[in-house]
């Protein structure tokens, strides 16, 4: 086995693990999926899909970190952050086959497991067992997006900040502050101030 083939195999193993979280399926099912997948590698800060392009792929992050944002009046509003095992794509563009209004950009060097629109349709046709996986992945995406939406509307800036820091301590380390601030809909100045509060006090975020 060549060096690249070994890396490829290791990456696929990892993907199998990620997907198992949603629905148990056998190695054999997974083998059947393999031919439909593409592995795509990107440097950091690369736009994987630009505004105005039609999204060709649904991606699962194998390694690295990416964000999705909306360019709105010279500002970038970050609406999703995705690390290993999470799905990220421009959904509306992918499903309705229309130009994307969102941009997906890598934050770190990133490896995606990607499946094209046509391959995904074929996959569902050929392996009926995949329906469940697809349904549960999309359900998870919906619940996450609903929670974020609700938090934005309902919770205070401080609550949003503390809850995120408590639940995603790793992301606070990895994601540039301005993107996190935008994602949580907090002004960058306010974000810095709140971050300061959590330092040296053993992170008082239990409330």
């Amino acid at each position, binding site marked *: 086995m060549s060096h690249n083939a070994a890396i490829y195999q290791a990456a696929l193993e990892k993907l199998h693990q990620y997907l198992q979280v949603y629905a148990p399926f056998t190695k054999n099912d997974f083998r059947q999926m393999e031919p439909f997948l593409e592995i795509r590698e990107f440097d950091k800060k690369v736009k994987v899909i630009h505004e105005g392009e039609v999204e060709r792929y649904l991606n699962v992050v194998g390694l690295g970190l990416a964000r999705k944002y909306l360019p709105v009046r010279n500002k970038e509003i970050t609406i999703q952050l995705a690390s290993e095992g999470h799905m990220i794509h421009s959904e*509306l563009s992918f*499903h*309705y086959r229309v130009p994307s*209004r969102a941009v997906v950009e890598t934050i770190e060097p990133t490896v995606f497991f990607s499946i094209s629109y046509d391959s995904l349709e074929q996959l569902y046709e050929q392996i009926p067992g995949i329906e469940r996986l697809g*349904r549960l992945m999309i359900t998870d*995406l*919906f619940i996450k997006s609903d929670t974020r*939406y609700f938090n934005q509307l*309902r919770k205070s800036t401080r609550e949003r900040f503390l809850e995120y820091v408590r639940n995603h301590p790793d992301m606070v380390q990895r994601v540039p502050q301005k993107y996190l601030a935008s994602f949580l809909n907090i002004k960058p100045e306010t974000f810095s101030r709140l971050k300061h509060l959590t330092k040296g006090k053993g992170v008082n975020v239990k409330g």
Partner: protein
Amino acid sequence: MTMLEMLRQYISGYVALTGEDFAVLADKLIVREFERRQLLVRVGEVEQYLSFVVKGLARMYFYKGKTEMITNIAKEGELIAASASFLSGKPSYYYVETLEPCTLLSISRANLEQAYEESPRIEKLGRLVTTYFVLQKEEWELECMRLDTRERFLRFIGNNPELLTRVPQKYLASYLNMKPETFSRLKNHIKKRPFAGRP
């Protein structure tokens, strides 16, 4: 059209179910009737049903301080539920309340899971409906960010002209996230120049 025919028509927009598949689903439905102004789900309760509106009008909302924030209004031929709670089995963030007397065709979570077991096509339907939830939410958020007040008003009224007469104005204003005065002003503007809103 009967209730089941209405539902079948709605489903055909997603997936072609055989008569047998549809029977699997139909067997698991219950009909629920409500007066106007009845709460179907309260904040903190787990949503037990996914419901199809056969007749009537319902809304989903929460309180921000003392203000009601409406996040969804559903009419005939649409689904209503505290959907994230229904799907996750966790307590709802939202209230769901009828605005008019309602007839709903509802399925419980356990029965829906059972239907998925019995028919892969119903599982596909589940995937597609959930995908639609995601897309609808994303589109709504996108519009709130991209469109100004007037554009949001015109778009909503263009898509749902009948709701202008059925839903109390303050609720529509809340749903579109604008002040009632602004809503009223935009509405009067449309009345005077009926074609102003058409693209």
